[in-house]
């Protein structure tokens, strides 16, 4: 698998993602947000952080970078696009995923490990898991409160686009949503950080299942 991690000014989880992918022997390139051609990559990762200082709104400025134009092309081509934390915020601002991440319902920045429950085990990101499986994954955000309109929320549920829910609703998200895909299933965003939970040495490697699923999906696609 060939992967790209895009570093925006203010990204701070890009190297975590880079090392996580390397630990699965993925051929990974670190690109900046001026990259204009992403056609060579099976999967493109938009990492966490504070792109453009979170000025105006989280992700609101990053969406106009050349790399995001290339990400839109990649998404249309069916390549996998994954946004973690600020990456999720950027994908919603860019219109590649519906909804928006607002400030947490309970005041403050949350830095913790939380349980995620697998809602849809048939996605590109959960295909090695079962419905109801619980993954303990780090979170670190002040704006993770997923909000959308009632019609879109129903569509997300009806189309099985909700991939993970929080076991406890830590940030006020509608329907405890932690991670969603687009309708086609190739663009995915989540607030939690599986890339920070890939090495047993750090006390938690439950994020590995996420990457194993993604690798499996890319492998299956290559065989098809």
């Amino acid at each position, binding site marked *: 698998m060939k992967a790209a991690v895009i570093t925006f000014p203010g990204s701070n989880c890009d190297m975590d993602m880079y090392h996580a992918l390397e630990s699965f022997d993925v051929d990974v390139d670190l690109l900046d947000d001026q990259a204009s051609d992403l056609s060579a990559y099976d999967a493109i990762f938009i990492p966490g952080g504070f792109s453009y200082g979170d000025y*105006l709104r989280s992700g*609101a400025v990053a969406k106009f970078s050349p790399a995001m134009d290339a990400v839109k092309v990649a998404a249309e081509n069916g390549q996998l696009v994954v946004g973690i934390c600020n990456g999720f915020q950027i994908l919603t*601002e860019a219109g590649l995923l519906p909804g*928006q991440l607002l400030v947490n319902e309970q*005041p403050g920045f949350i830095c913790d490990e939380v349980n995620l429950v697998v809602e849809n085990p048939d996605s590109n990101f959960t295909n090695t898991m079962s419905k109801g499986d619980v993954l303990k994954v780090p979170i670190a955000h002040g704006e993770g*409160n997923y*909000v*959308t*309109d009632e019609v879109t929320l129903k569509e997300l549920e009806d189309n099985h686009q909700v991939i993970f829910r929080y076991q406890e609703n830590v940030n*006020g998200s509608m329907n405890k949503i932690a991670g969603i895909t687009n309708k086609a299933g190739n663009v995915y965003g989540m607030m939690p950080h599986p890339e920070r939970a890939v090495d047993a040495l750090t006390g938690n490697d439950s994020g590995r299942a996420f990457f194993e699923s993604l690798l499996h999906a890319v492998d299956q696609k290559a065989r098809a």
Partner: protein
Amino acid sequence: MYLAKIYVTYKPSILDPQGVVIKSALERLEYQGIEDVSQGKYFQVKLTGADKAAVAKEVESLVEELLINHNTETYTYDLEEI
């Protein structure tokens, strides 16, 4: 030249956690009769254009393209010649 004063607020259907916290702080300070608080954003944009109508159109365009997120936010603005 024109000055646009742009006020961005959450749509009424959106719970504004910051407004709720500010309201509770005001109540702790014993301000009586606080019914509701919502926190928004205020922008001042200076810009030029052919006439006021053209500038107003430009303001609406830039607000809708960048300054607000249509999921949760709405806006009003005042425009004056300076």
